[in-house]
């Protein structure tokens, strides 16, 4: 299989990839295109815009508190990312560094959360949240989503593969476990930590189900729920709907344009949630 020669099979391969690319990008392109079309051209089937207008974006901005929603979403995603990274880092370190009474039990306790679909535990979660008075609050959106096992297991694996000599050297120098973690382990785990951060941020940004349950006020909710509210409210205002959808996906796409390689690697390495 020499890649440079143009054989029949390689032409076929390119054709397949081009088709797949068109299928993948087509609906996304159509979303942005429709969002930029003026009212009277919205039903056009022309794949290229004849004129560009921001009226749909202005309409969205004026009819729903989309600025609040975007800010809430960003805060939620950022706090989930930071919180989960900290929790997973500490727990992964404990499980990788020591063998202690119950360490296996803890490991399986974390692993086992994978077997519990969220819909099975959503009612008690909701009840606890409303008892705490956390409905329609930022902490209500963030704190329950900090419970996860995936990062713990991933980081534990990376730490186990860590060169032991480095840690031994630090221990002989008298460094405590906390200092070893921050001065030696963390700097050497930049790649998996960055991958986790990307996954958690995008996952948090796109999270829909939990915010749907616990935030129903437009000013307090996230953009995904806001988009659904807008859909119910505006029905077939397609240009405006596409503008709202574009705004809801823009930050992730910007992140993707900047960190394309890292984002793809992060997802491939760790699978879907």
């Amino acid at each position, binding site marked *: 299989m020499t890649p440079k020669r143009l054989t029949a099979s390689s032409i076929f391969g390119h054709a397949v990839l081009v088709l797949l690319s068109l299928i*993948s990008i087509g609906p996304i392109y159509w979303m942005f295109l429709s969002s930029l079309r003026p009212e009277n051209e919205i039903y056009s089937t022309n794949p290229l815009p004849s004129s560009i207008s921001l009226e749909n974006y202005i309409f969205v901005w004026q009819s729903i508190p989309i600025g609040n929603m975007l800010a809430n979403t960003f805060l939620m995603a950022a706090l989930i990312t930071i919180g989960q990274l900290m929790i997973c880092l500490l*727990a992964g*370190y404990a499980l990788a*560094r020591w063998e*202690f009474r119950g360490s296996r039990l803890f490991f399986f306790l974390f692993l086992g959360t994978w077997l519990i679909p969220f819909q099975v535990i959503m009612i*008690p979660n909701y009840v606890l949240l409303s008892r705490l008075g956390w409905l329609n609050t930022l902490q209500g959106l963030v704190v329950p989503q900090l419970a996860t096992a995936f990062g713990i297991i991933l980081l534990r694996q990376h730490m186990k593969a860590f060169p032991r000599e480095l*840690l031994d050297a630090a221990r002989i120098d008298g460094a405590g476990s906390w200092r070893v973690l921050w001065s030696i382990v963390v700097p050497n785990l930049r790649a998996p930590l960055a991958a986790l951060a990307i996954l958690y941020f995008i996952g948090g940004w796109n999270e829909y189900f939990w915010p749907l349950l616990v935030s129903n006020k437009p000013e307090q909710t996230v953009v995904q729920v806001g988009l659904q509210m807008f859909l119910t409210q505006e029905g077939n205002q397609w240009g405006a709907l596409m503008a709202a959808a574009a705004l*809801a996906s823009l930050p992730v796409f910007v992140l993707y344009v900047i960190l394309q390689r890292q984002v*793809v690697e992060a997802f491939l390495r760790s699978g*879907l949630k």
Partner: protein
Amino acid sequence: MAIETPLSTAARPSPQQATATRRTIWQRIRLIEPYLYLLPAFLAVGIWVYWPLIQTVELSFYRWNLLPTRPKVPVGFENYLQVLALPEMGIALRNTVLYALGLLPFSVGLPLALALITAGIGGPLRGVYRAVIFAPVLMAPVVVAVVWRWILHPTQGLVYTAIQQPLGLPTVNWFRDSVLSLPVIVAITGWGLLGFSFLIFSAGLANIPKEYTEAARIDGATQWQITRYVMLPLLTPTISFMVIMTVLLGAQWVFPLVNVLTQGGPQDATTNLYYILWQFGFRSFNVGWSSAAAVLFFAGFGIIAFIAVRLIDRFSIYDS
């Protein structure tokens, strides 16, 4: 699974020159040290996963409507009997299976075939294809739902105005059709999944050492034989991973689309077990039914997951 800890000696106190009392304090702190590191994760998982799981089991034996002011009435196994007798449960179970089976071509069959066809394609274009094909994976499910609702609108959407209308085909109400709505939801979910699966399989193929395929080629194997007897067996861990993810989580992936586009309808045609739990709980406010159905579902889910993991271990061929 044996847990090896290359760093376990760290639990011993360092032989520093300190007084005996200080050493015992340090020893004590050292003993509980790992638990301190574990505490945040343990609290998060305990409070938001395991404790609620116990509460779900408890709530399945009560009648309650989610209002804090209303009492919970103990009803024994009544919720279970009622839930099992509901015709919606049978439909939801059937649809859950249909979703899982329907998604398999998008998460395994098609992307695997495409990855094999395009395995030899290299060069600078490869990165461009990769970036573009992966893009739908990053789309929020609600955004996906809204965009496809526009494209598939019966009379205004692109599919009608660009395909059906010019060809003189009749209008189709994609999301209100009792036969088509489920396949359409599957196809849209599949659209979001295809790029991810394709890149997973491509990465798996790229990891197969060149020596294996070269050796087979020198032995006179055809391209088909190399694919069938060298590449596919080495891909079994990836294939089985994707199959299990789809079977276990497929019905969960479609949830946002169902909620935004069809609300489970028409006449429960697109509902599934995840969706019915949500409807019982937060639409009909029947906590007992939702919890009883959740317990049954959890049990079934656990059994399938257990069997799946055993099957992976048995059928996977590892390159060691």
